């Protein structure tokens, strides 16, 4: 039996060695320790037997073989080694890729499916030692580069050869939304990264079906294999977690997501996805907020994150999330246990905390029969500590990995701390020793009377000690230097020394009885800090930043009384009208509305009466051209055609622009792709439901749109060196023509496949999905509408003719600043126009732009809108509409339509919004004045009947922001006073995006 165990318990190295092999299979016996066999079970005074690299016995009545090496661990604790699920240990040297990989690889250099961490792993003794110092025995490491990163390996930190230490060569498949070192221009944005991932997974499946007959791509082949592994995606923030979850759901994949410590603010949404998380343990340090002007630069979102970050784990636990911890991202390798201690003080139970370091990551990677607990048969990955690992006075003494011992702190090192009586040359002095490490701090003073005190230097070397001090203040003629030996765990020191006059003397020091040795970290008041860490945090706000709130707003059931209603209907502007909203819709518009008539029955709902006398009630403003609330770039500029990218993949629900625009009366926006390429990406249509997550912003069943662009941007005229086709407007035409021809072919092959009889179809592989061309096929079928960025008349006419020749329709020309020159042609095609009120001269193609454009186009019968393309202008679109009255003499009603019904029509949303009429969405704005005057302020903005902006509530929110800031800053200062390290304030200055904004790194 023992023989069998031995052969199992010893990793066999087949490499030849220089000289005789070490054939010994050692047996180690750990005695009298408290053994934490798993997160919920601790055995007091128990024994663990380790044979070779495996645990062979655990228990309280274990017979210890005579040939075992014995360790008496009375008072100490034994824990399973920590499993680090996300790192790049041993990959550093592989990060320097030199250009595109050679060989039959994927066309895009951000796809590295063939990369294997197991093939690249190189010893990194410094980082491995830092990991082991924290008790980590096993890491899952991968090369963190690219969107498809290849496979990760589970590696034991046993300091043997890679062949022995790699426990599982293919432990994970890793992905990110960052192209890393790839020099390929595509993707240049986060939405492009998501699109590439989506297409590549589809291509891998196609490759397995039939694609390998057409081309050889070893990355697609490898990706198919990767998809069977635990799939780890790296997220940059909580919104990325949800993005990845929905992408994987679409592709039928089950991901594990490495998050960013801010998931608490979308805990229930994330829990609902069922996605397990890897949570970083890097907690933000308090900020230096001493100077109030300096502190103004720190947004509340940062302050709140600082306060809530330690609470992330227990909030996610309560929401029902599964998670493991990772030290990835932590600046300091020794931060694991202090951070975890804070997380536990904040409210996470110890069992879940320990499980998240051991059993959970082990299970996520299918290693739970090998690591994560202390059971016979498992790998001997152990931590030996002086106290409970979460005790701040705990010291990790040893880390064992695969049965190999790594001493962190010499268990037998004498503890020299304390107050001693120093017997020296027939006198007694008092010696006090504090501080850590091999050179503790010490002072010497006389036992009685005077308060003179001198510093002494202490040097420890194992059991030997050196001590020196200047004796003049203590009545000795000069320097005293002593050498000695430590006895009784440092309680007694004795030896010989030399006095100032050269005499050699005998000396001794005795620790005072009752003096408990204690290791104290200098300058930190741990007890105060602990009590601060245990304080409950403030509420989570939705979104968790300025102007967010802890609770969602209710849907109004209300009647606005005596308003001047801008109906946008046949009746125009009506005075003294009542408007009733209920269930998110406009229920009634009329004079003297009666509740009893509107809500017949015995139990009418509670109807709020809102006095709108003297005020103006309009439908919400619709911005046909916006780039707000988009994360990771508005342009996928890497390719001339990026029809496959979806802005809807990267909605940022935490953008302050949403709230600011609401306060300007905007309720709906089209989030457009930028104009860096002739065929851009797919739009997203959202309502400004501030506080909801990305899905909560989407307009359900919204019509599909795609951005096209013409002119200077797409031909990259800002660059003298660009070589991307097209460089001229002529090339733009042909690029579009070619793309539509390809789309037709895709359509034909898909139609042919769909037309097969079921039997034939079963025998025929499905054609390759090409998401780029499928989007254009949708345009050809009339299922997707084009919004085309355009300026000069020639290019507008070009696209109209191209559309006519290929039989598709151009829904909207946006910007269209020379639209006034071709207004009859626009009308004849049935195209709408969405333009600026008065922008011009920012580039050559707008030198003939005139502010009369909108009025002229509308006059010619073109459905016309005024848009913003700008987060600042978006909140003053009412004023921009008013400019059409100044420039061109538009009527009030027509001017107002340009930011409401006009854009609603061109977005095909006019059945639901764009006017104040019964049955339409209750997207309403109450104004203090005629909204076309500069004096008008928004009183209230409703989206689906919910007052997401209310000027009165806005005042309360402002006070709440101040109060919340002051409260958190108070906490930061308290932690600073108690000795916590602070970091410099960081500043947030938002960038604004226009459609010209390129999603490229500088």
């Amino acid at each position, binding site marked *: 039996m023992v023989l069998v165990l031995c052969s199992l318990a010893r990793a066999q190295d087949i490499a030849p060695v220089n000289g005789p092999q070490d054939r010994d299979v050692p047996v180690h016996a750990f005695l009298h320790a408290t053994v934490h066999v798993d997160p919920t079970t601790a055995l007091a005074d128990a024994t663990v037997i380790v044979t070779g690299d495996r645990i062979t016995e655990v228990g309280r009545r274990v017979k210890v073989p005579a040939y075992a090496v014995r360790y008496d661990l009375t008072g100490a604790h034994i824990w399973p080694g920590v499993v680090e699920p996300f790192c790049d240990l041993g990959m550093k040297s592989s990060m320097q890729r030199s250009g595109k990989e050679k060989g039959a690889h994927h066309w895009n250099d951000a796809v590295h499916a063939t990369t294997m961490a197991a093939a690249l792993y190189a010893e990194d003794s410094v980082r491995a030692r830092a990991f082991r110092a924290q008790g980590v025995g096993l890491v899952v490491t991968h090369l963190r580069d690219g969107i498809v990163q290849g496979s990760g390996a589970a590696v034991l930190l046993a300091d043997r050869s890679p062949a022995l230490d790699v426990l599982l060569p293919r432990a994970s498949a890793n992905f990110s939304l960052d192209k890393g070192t790839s020099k390929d221009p595509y993707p240049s944005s986060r939405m492009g990264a998501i699109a590439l991932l989506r297409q590549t997974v589809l291509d891998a499946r196609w490759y397995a079906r039939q694609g390998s007959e057409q081309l050889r791509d070893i990355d697609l082949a490898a990706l198919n294999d990767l998809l069977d592994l635990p799939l780890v995606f790296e997220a940059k923030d909580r919104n990325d977690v949800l993005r990845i979850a929905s992408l994987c759901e679409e592709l039928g994949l089950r991901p594990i997501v490495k998050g960013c410590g801010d998931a608490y603010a979308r805990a229930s949404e994330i829990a609902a996805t069922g996605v397990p998380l890897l949570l970083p343990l890097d907690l933000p340090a308090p900020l230096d907020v001493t100077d109030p002007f300096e502190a103004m630069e720190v947004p509340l979102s940062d302050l709140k994150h600082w306060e809530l970050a330690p609470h992330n784990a227990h909030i996610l636990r309560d929401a029902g999330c599964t998670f493991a911890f990772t030290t990835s991202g932590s600046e300091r390798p020794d931060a694991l246990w202090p951070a975890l201690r804070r997380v536990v003080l904040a409210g996470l139970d110890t069992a879940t905390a320990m499980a998240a370091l051991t059993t959970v990551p082990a299970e996520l990677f299918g290693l739970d029969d090998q690591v994560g607990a202390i059971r016979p048969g498992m790998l001997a990955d152990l931590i030996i500590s002086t106290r409970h690992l979460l005790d701040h006075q705990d010291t990790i003494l040893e880390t064992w990995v695969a049965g190999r011992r790594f001493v962190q702190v010499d268990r037998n090192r004498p503890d020299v701390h304390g107050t001693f009586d120093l017997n020296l040359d027939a006198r007694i002095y008092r010696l006090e020793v504090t501080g850590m490490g091999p050179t503790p701090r010490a002072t010497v003073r006389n036992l009685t009377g005077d308060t003179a005190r001198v510093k002494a230097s202490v040097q420890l070397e194992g059991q030997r000690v050196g001590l020196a001090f200047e004796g003049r203040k203590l009545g000795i003629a000069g320097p005293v230097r002593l050498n000695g030996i430590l006895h009784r765990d440092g309680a007694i020191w004795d030896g010989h020394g030399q006095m100032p006059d050269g005499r050699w003397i005998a000396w001794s020091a005795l620790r005072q009885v009752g003096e408990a040795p204690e290791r104290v970290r200098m300058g930190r008041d741990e007890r105060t800090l602990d009590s601060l860490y245990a304080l409950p945090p403030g509420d989570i706000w939705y979104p968790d930043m300025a102007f967010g709130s802890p609770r969602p707003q209710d849907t109004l059931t209300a009647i606005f009384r005596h308003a001047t209603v801008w109906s946008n209907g046949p009746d125009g502007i009506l005075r003294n009208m009542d408007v009733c909203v209920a269930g998110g819709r406009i229920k009634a518009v009329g004079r003297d509305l009666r509740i009893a008539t509107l809500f017949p029955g015995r139990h009418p709902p509670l109807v709020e009466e809102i006095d709108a006398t003297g005020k103006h009630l309009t439908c919400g403003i619709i911005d046909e051209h916006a780039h707000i609330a988009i994360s990771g770039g508005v342009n996928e500029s890497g390719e001339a055609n990026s029809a496959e990218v979806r802005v809807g993949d990267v909605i940022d629900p935490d953008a302050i622009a949403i709230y*600011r625009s609401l306060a300007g009366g905007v309720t709906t926006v089209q989030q457009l792709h930028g104009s860096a390429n002739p065929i851009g990406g797919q739009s997203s249509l959202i309502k400004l439901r501030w506080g909801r997550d990305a899905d909560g912003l989407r307009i359900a069943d919204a019509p599909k749109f795609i951005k096209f662009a013409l002119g200077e941007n797409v031909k990259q005229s800002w660059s003298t060196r660009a070589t991307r086709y097209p460089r001229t407007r002529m090339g733009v035409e042909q690029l579009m023509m070619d793309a539509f021809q390809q789309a037709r072919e895709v359509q034909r092959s898909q139609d042919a496949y769909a037309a097969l009889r079921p039997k034939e179809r079963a025998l025929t592989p499905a054609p390759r999905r090409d998401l780029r061309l499928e989007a254009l096929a949708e345009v050809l079928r009339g299922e997707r509408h084009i919004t085309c960025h355009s300026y000069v008349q020639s290019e507008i006419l070009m696209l109209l003719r191209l559309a006519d020749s290929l039989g598709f329709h151009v829904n909207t020309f946006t910007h269209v600043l020379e639209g006034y020159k071709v207004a009859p042609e626009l009308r004849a095609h049935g195209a709408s126009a969405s333009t600026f009120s008065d922008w011009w*001269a920012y580039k050559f193609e707008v030198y003939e732009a005139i502010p009369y454009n909108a009025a002229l186009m509308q006059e010619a019968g073109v459905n016309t809108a005024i848009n913003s393309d700008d987060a600042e202008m978006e909140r003053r679109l009412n004023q921009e509409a008013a400019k059409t009255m100044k420039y061109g003499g538009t009527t009030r009603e027509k001017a107002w339509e340009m930011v409401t019904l006009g854009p609603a029509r061109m977005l095909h949303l006019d059945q639901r919004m764009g006017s104040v009429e019964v049955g339409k969405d209750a997207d309403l704005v109450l104004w203090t004045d005629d909204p076309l005057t500069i004096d008008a302020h928004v009183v209230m903005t409703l989206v689906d009947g919910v007052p997401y902006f209310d000027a009165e509530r806005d005042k309360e929110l402002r006070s709440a922001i101040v109060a919340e800031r002051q409260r958190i800053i108070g906490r930061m200062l308290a932690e600073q006073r108690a000795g916590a390290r602070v970091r410099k304030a960081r500043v947030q200055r938002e960038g604004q995006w226009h459609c010209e904004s390129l999603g490229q790194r500088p």
Partner: protein
Amino acid sequence: MKTIPFLLLLSTVCHAMGQRPEPAPVQTRSILVQGGTVHVGDGRLIMDGVVGFRNGRIDHVGNVATVTATYDTVIDARGMEVYPGLILPDATLGLGEIDQVNATMDEREAGDRTPEVRAIAAYNADSRIIPTVRRNGVLLAQICPRGGIISGTSSIVQLDAWGTSDATVRVDDGVHLVWPDRYDRNGWWAEPGPTVKAEANKREAILSELEDRFLRASAYAQRTHPDPVDVRSEALKGLFTGARTLFVHADEAIAIQEAVLFARRVGVQRMVLVGGYDAWRVGDLLRENKVPVILRRLHSLPLREDDDIDLPYRLPALMKAQGLTFCLGYSGGMERMGSRNLPFVAGTAAAYGLDPEEALRAVTFDAARILGISNDYGSLQEGLSATLFISRGNVLDMRTNDVVMAFIDGRALHLDGIQESLFERYRRHNAGPGH
């Protein structure tokens, strides 16, 4: 004396359709604008007022009943509003035409410290943008070099000129200093995110070099016959005699504190703060040191995520509450073509807490005082230049801003330009044949 409806007069000056409007000839006939609401510019309002001017100078302002002199032409402005010409400080009109056509751009010199470059040397009085700005009531502007740390030397011009000679109102009025950013941007601009504090050492070096440069220039100013001549010190020396004003561009409270203390320390005689987002937070300091402010464009987003969403709009009211002197600027993105909206930022000031006449004052009287041209421009007072305009409605509201006549130094401007001409042309064209 002959009373003519203004439309008739307007039609006589509209002979330049389809081109840049021709600069107007010198005033030869005396003119009385009669019956409108006269906005003096300093806050006063004269209902049923008159403004009379001859040889380019105002010789009478008052109620209709107060007119004693006779005028060659009387303009009936009943039901209309009469304003002093609006003044646009901190602008780049004429220094650039089309942002993305490099050859047309003259606003930024190479190097970070170029006090010697003079805006007037490059000012293009023929810029097609200028007539469109004038069209909304802006008749004067301070033209400033941009960029770097010491951007260069500005000049003040009137906006209807044949060239730089007749455009110049005040040459080389000030030197522009962009206070070094206290923060370095981080990351990339598509994910603008965190900005970290500028590396302390680097910034200290810049500030100490700046101080050194100013102290040396101050000493240089004492030389009666400098030899050799140093063009940079020549440009700066006026700051120490009061001949030139130091315009310091800064927004954050701490940067403003630093800038004011700096100007005082190096002996700058007159400083104006430009930007001034946080100026109201350090009102005492600005009052004590008599530093007026050209406020940043009000139509902008709050600088900080946590700021009140309408904070930029309320800056003028906050400044007023602090008793600070200020006027309104329009610099920033799209500043040249966008500056025709200057009246509307004043309108926003009025919508957010200022009295409408106070808001007007921030683009007329106080702008002139801050730029040092109030003896000639900025208000409708006897003896001042006849630089004024008539609007059918409130000029500060985009809906009613409708400038029908304008005068610079008494010269009746041709207001309509290429944009109006294209409007008329395509209105006819789009109506089809026979129209």
